[in-house]
């Protein structure tokens, strides 16, 4: 479904992606992991067309996405930092995003799920960080797309919202969707992810199921297995 081919991206002297090759098949939850600054967000932003790679190509449904924009109607993206225009209300923002995408949406269901009904008329500038993240999640999940990209989705969520989020992710997976997640919370990965993609030095260091990783690193605990991978970088 998605192919990254020989992707190079450097910011000044720092090479973030260094000839990365990765292909992701349709269906399932893929956790993109790696130490801080390993290029997880850059990789996702390349796919979204927000960061423009110096070399290489990206294919989504066998079509190159570089310099195109209409393919973005087929994917949902949850950005890392939820920051919206402070003068708009939640309702207006939802209407606006709906207006921008010619697609069916089921926002009411999600608004009920996250208990946002009381906040609909509030200005976005007056919302707490966690509530903003809930709005962010509603905006991401209200469209029906085959690919869902979540960048640090658990940021600032309370336990109940976190449970709802996990249920939501599982429900989307059952519909046969492809979900990419970056996160640093290993228990979350352990619970939801089918496969792990581990980035190191701008390349894919490991790709496979969680059990494979545990076997390869001789660790029963995912957190330690990942720490084991990262420590190799420092060694």
């Amino acid at each position, binding site marked *: 479904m998605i192919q990254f081919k020989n992707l190079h991206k450097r*910011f000044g002297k720092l090479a973030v992606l260094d000839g990365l090759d990765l292909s992701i098949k349709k269906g399932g939850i893929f956790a993109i992991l790696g130490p801080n600054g390993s290029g997880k967000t850059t990789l996702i*932003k390349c796919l*979204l*067309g*927000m*960061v*423009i790679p110096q070399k290489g190509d990206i294919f989504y449904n066998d079509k190159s996405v570089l*310099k195109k*924009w*209409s*393919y*973005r*109607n087929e994917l949902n*993206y949850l*950005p890392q*930092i*939820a*920051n*919206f*225009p402070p*003068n*708009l209300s939640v309702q207006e923002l939802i209407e*606006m*995003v709906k*207006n*921008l*995408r010619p697609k069916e949406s089921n926002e009411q269901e999600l608004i009920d799920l996250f208990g946002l009904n009381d906040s609909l008329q509030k200005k976005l500038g007056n919302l707490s960080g966690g509530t903003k993240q809930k709005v962010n999640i509603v*905006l991401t999940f209200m469209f029906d797309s085959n690919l869902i990209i979540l960048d640090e989705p658990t940021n600032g969520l309370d336990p109940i919202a976190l449970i709802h989020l996990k249920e939501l992710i599982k429900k989307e997976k059952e519909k046969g969707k492809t979900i990419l997640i970056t996160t640093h919370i290993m228990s979350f990965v352990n619970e939801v992810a089918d496969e792990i993609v581990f980035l190191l030095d701008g390349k894919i260091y490991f790709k496979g199921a969680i059990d494979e990783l545990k076997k390869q690193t001789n660790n029963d605990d995912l957190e330690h297995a990942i720490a084991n991978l990262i420590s190799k970088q420092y060694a």
Partner: protein
Amino acid sequence: MLKILKYSFYDLMRSRWSYVYFLFYLLLGFVLLFLNNDVNKAVITLMNIIIVLTPLIGTIFGVMYYYNSKEFTELLLAQPINRSKIFMGQYLGISISLTLSLVLGLGIPFVLYGLFKSTAIFNFSLLLVVGTFLNFIFVALSYNIALSTENKIKGFGYAILMWLFLAVVYDGIFLISLVMFNEYPLDKFSLVATMFNPIDLSRILILLKLDISALLGYTGAVFRKFFGTNLGMLLSMLILVFWVLIPIVRMNFKLRKKDF
């Protein structure tokens, strides 16, 4: 693009600063008319204020909006919209809302005072047209600076420096060079030098129309002598249009390679 424009415009129209800006012009209009008691004189005073103030406000609003809406822009970038449409929509949203503050803020007191019965109506509209041009030019210039500068503080600094240069320093250098080289023929030099500064150009445009160019500066007289009023005005208008278009073209060029 229209959708983005609509929301940027809506967002700005609801922010406090648009109202402060609007009320400032409203107050300025009333005070000037009250003090001068004459629409024509008020227009001249207004010119001096508009020519310095609209570029400053346009510059500040431009960089401020860009940096403040950065994360929201990222949300938009992930939507199925063309990049340049997002930024053109924002750019037009800011420029139009600033222009509306200017036109309504000054228009209301002048209309109430009896502008439509006065002979100054043409001069007054020209003033608003020039103010509008300056809004569009300086928002575009500041958007260029903001797009090229990742650091917010630096971006603000560069933008203010740009305004300071065009509004104050440029004239200083211009005058010094006129004094230094006054043994040489300077007509052509001063003509060209004027075109490279939209603030000077706007000033001359209004002065030509107000028929007091001989009183107010060397360049105005040269312009008048060379082009005659109508051609001069057409030419300066054309150059102002270029001052809007060139930054917009550069903005779109820059956007093609920019990472967010």
